[in-house]
C-alpha cells in the first residue's frame, strides 16, 4: 500500500475535525473527495484563463477551449476509446442515461420493443427507461439477482430476443459491490439479440481499469464527482458510428450547423450532443482527476480496492448482529451494505457520525431492490483510494458501540 499510505495528504478535507474525531469518510459511493490538484486546476482556470469555449478568437477563449477539448483526449486514452469524438460531456450519469434513453428510444425503438435492466439498478438506470417506455410503449424486463448478489445470466439469456433493443446494466453495484462479467454479458447480448449494450459505470469507472474496446460494449456512462472530479460533469462514451446515427435530444447553441426559423441542422459529434455552454471548467477539473488517477495507475487503484474489500470482508462480515449485503463473488468492489435487525439505519448512521464516521443511510437509490430484500434501508460503506484498513477498523468499533446504544 506504499503509494496509498500518504495519500490523505493530497485531500484537504482530511484536515477536518468531526465531533472531536478525525474524519473517517466512507461515503465515496455517493461522492468522492477531491485532491488539491483538481481543486487548484479549476481555480487556475477561473483565475487566469476563463472564457467561453469554441467560438472565441482571442487568447483566453483559445486557451480554455484547448484545455477543454484536451480532456476528450485524456478520456479517450483512459478508456481506450478509438476516437476522442466518442467522448460526450454531460452534467452527470443521470443526464447521460436520460439522454441515451430518449435518443435511442426515439431513433431506434418502436412499440413493443424491449429494454432489459437488472433488479439491482440505480434509479438513474431505471426511471429514464420507465419514462421512455411509457412514451413509446416499450416493455422493460429486469434480470434477476441471485442470492449471492450476482446477476442471473441464465435469466438474462432467456429474456434476450429479437425484440430486445437495449440492455443497460450497472458496471459495479453501488450497494453490494457486485461486478458483473461484462464480457460474458456482451457475448450473451450479441449471440441472442441485436441489442445495444449500455454499462452504467458510475461506480465502476472510479475503481477499475475500463477498456471499452476490450469489453465490446456500445455505451458507457459515468460521473466526474465520484472519481475525484468536480460536480456537474459526466461522460457518455459511445461507438462513433452509433453516435453518428443518433439524434440530439437537447437543442441550443454550439450544437448546430445551421439554424433557420423553420428548422436546424446539427454539428458533427461530439458537438451535436452538447447544447449550450458546456460545464467546461468542470470538464477541465475532470481532466485533472483523470491525470491524478493515471499517475497512481488504475491497476494500483484496483489492487488497493481489492485489498480494502478483502479486509472489509474479514472485519465487517464478522460483526455480531450485522447483516451484510455484499457480493460473494471473488472479485467485487469495496462496498458494503449493512443493516442490524431492530436498529434503524438512520439512527445507526447518525450515531456513527458522532465517531467521525461518514456513511450513508437509506435506500441508496436502489429502492426496488431493497423492497425485494424486504428491508427499508441500509447503511452503506464505500471505500476509495484515500481510505485504509484503519478506517475499516474505526467503522467496526463505531458500529459496535453505536448498536449498543441503540438497542
Amino acid at each position: 500500500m506504499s503509494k496509498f499510505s500518504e495519500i490523505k495528504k493530497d485531500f484537504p478535507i482530511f484536515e477536518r475535525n468531526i465531533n472531536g474525531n478525525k474524519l473517517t469518510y466512507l461515503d465515496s459511493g455517493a461522492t468522492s473527495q477531491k485532491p488539491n490538484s483538481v481543486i487548484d486546476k479549476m481555480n487556475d482556470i477561473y483565475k487566469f484563463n476563463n472564457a467561453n469555449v469554441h467560438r472565441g478568437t482571442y487568447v483566453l477563449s483559445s486557451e480554455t477551449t484547448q484545455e477543454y477539448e484536451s480532456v476528450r483526449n485524456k478520456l479517450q486514452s483512459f478508456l481506450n476509446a478509438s476516437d476522442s469524438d466518442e467522448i460526450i460531456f454531460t452534467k452527470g450519469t443521470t443526464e447521460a442515461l436520460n439522454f441515451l434513453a430518449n435518443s435511442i428510444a426515439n431513433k431506434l425503438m418502436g412499440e413493443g420493443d424491449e429494454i432489459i435492466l437488472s433488479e439491482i439498478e440505480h434509479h438513474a438506470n431505471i426511471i429514464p427507461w420507465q419514462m421512455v417506455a411509457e412514451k413509446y410503449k416499450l416493455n422493460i424486463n429486469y434480470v434477476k439477482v441471485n442470492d449471492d448478489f450476482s446477476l442471473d445470466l441464465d435469466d438474462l439469456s432467456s429474456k434476450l430476443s429479437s425484440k430486445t433493443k437495449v440492455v443497460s446494466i450497472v458496471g459495479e453495484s453501488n450497494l453490494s459491490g457486485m461486478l458483473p462479467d461484462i464480457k460474458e454479458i456482451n457475448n450473451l447480448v450479441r449471440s441472442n439479440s441485436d441489442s445495444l449494450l449500455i454499462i452504467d459505470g458510475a461506480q465502476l469507472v472510479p475503481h477499475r481499469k475500463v477498456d471499452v474496446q476490450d469489453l465490446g460494449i456500445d455505451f458507457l456512462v459515468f460521473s466526474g464527482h465520484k472519481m475525484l472530479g468536480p460536480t456537474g460533469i459526466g461522460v457518455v462514451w459511445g461507438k462513433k458510428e452509433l453516435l453518428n446515427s443518433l439524434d440530439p435530444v437537447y437543442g441550443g447553441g454550439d450544437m448546430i450547423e445551421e439554424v433557420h426559423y423553420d428548422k436546424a441542422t446539427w454539428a458533427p459529434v461530439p458537438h451535436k450532443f452538447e447544447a449550450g455552454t458546456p460545464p467546461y471548467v468542470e470538464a477541465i477539473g475532470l481532466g485533472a482527476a483523470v491525470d491524478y488517477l493515471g499517475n497512481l495507475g488504475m491497476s494500483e487503484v484496483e489492487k488497493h480496492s481489492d485489498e480494502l474489500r478483502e479486509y472489509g470482508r474479514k472485519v465487517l462480515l464478522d460483526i455480531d448482529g450485522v447483516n451484510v449485503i455484499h457480493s460473494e463473488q471473488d472479485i467485487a468492489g469495496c462496498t458494503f451494505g449493512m443493516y442490524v435487525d431492530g436498529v434503524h439505519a438512520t439512527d445507526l448512521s447518525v450515531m456513527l457520525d458522532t465517531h467521525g464516521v461518514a456513511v450513508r443511510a437509506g435506500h441508496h437509490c436502489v429502492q426496488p431492490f431493497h423492497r425485494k430484500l424486504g428491508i427499508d434501508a441500509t447503511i452503506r460503506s464505500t471505500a476509495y483510494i484515500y481510505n485504509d484498513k484503519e478506517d475499516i477498523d474505526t467503522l467496526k468499533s463505531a458500529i459496535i458501540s453505536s448498536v449498543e446504544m441503540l438497542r
Partner: protein
Amino acid sequence: MSIREKVDEYKKILDIFPNDQEKYQYLIEKAKENNSFPPELRLDNFKVNGCQSQVWLVPEEKNEKLFFNSDSDALISKGLVTLIASIYSDEKAEDIVTSEIDLMEEFELGVILSPARRNGAYSMLKTIKEYAKNLIA
C-alpha cells in the same frame, strides 16, 4: 408551562450533555419511555412527510387544548418527535400558531436538527402548526 418555558427547560437539560453522542442518548431514552402510541394509529394520514425515517403525529383536543401523540420506527427520530410533541402539547391552538420559536436555533442537536436535513424536524413542526391552524379555522 408555556411553550417558551418548556423549550428553556429542555435547553437546560440538553446543555448538560457535553457532546452529540450523549444528547442523542438522552433522546433515545425519551424514545424508550414513550410507549403509549397505539400501533393501529401508524396510519398514512398521520405520517409526517419527508423524514428519513417513518414518523407519526396524532393530534387530540382536550379542554380546548391540543395534545400530540407521536411515534417513529427510528429511535432518535422518535426521541426528537417525542420532545417536540411534549413542547407543543397541552397548549392552545392559537399559542402554537403564533409561537415563533426556532427549534433549530434553540437546540444544538447535531445533524438531526440541522436545517439541512431535508424536512425532518422541520416537517414535524410544520405538521403540528398545520393541525393547530386547522383547528382555529
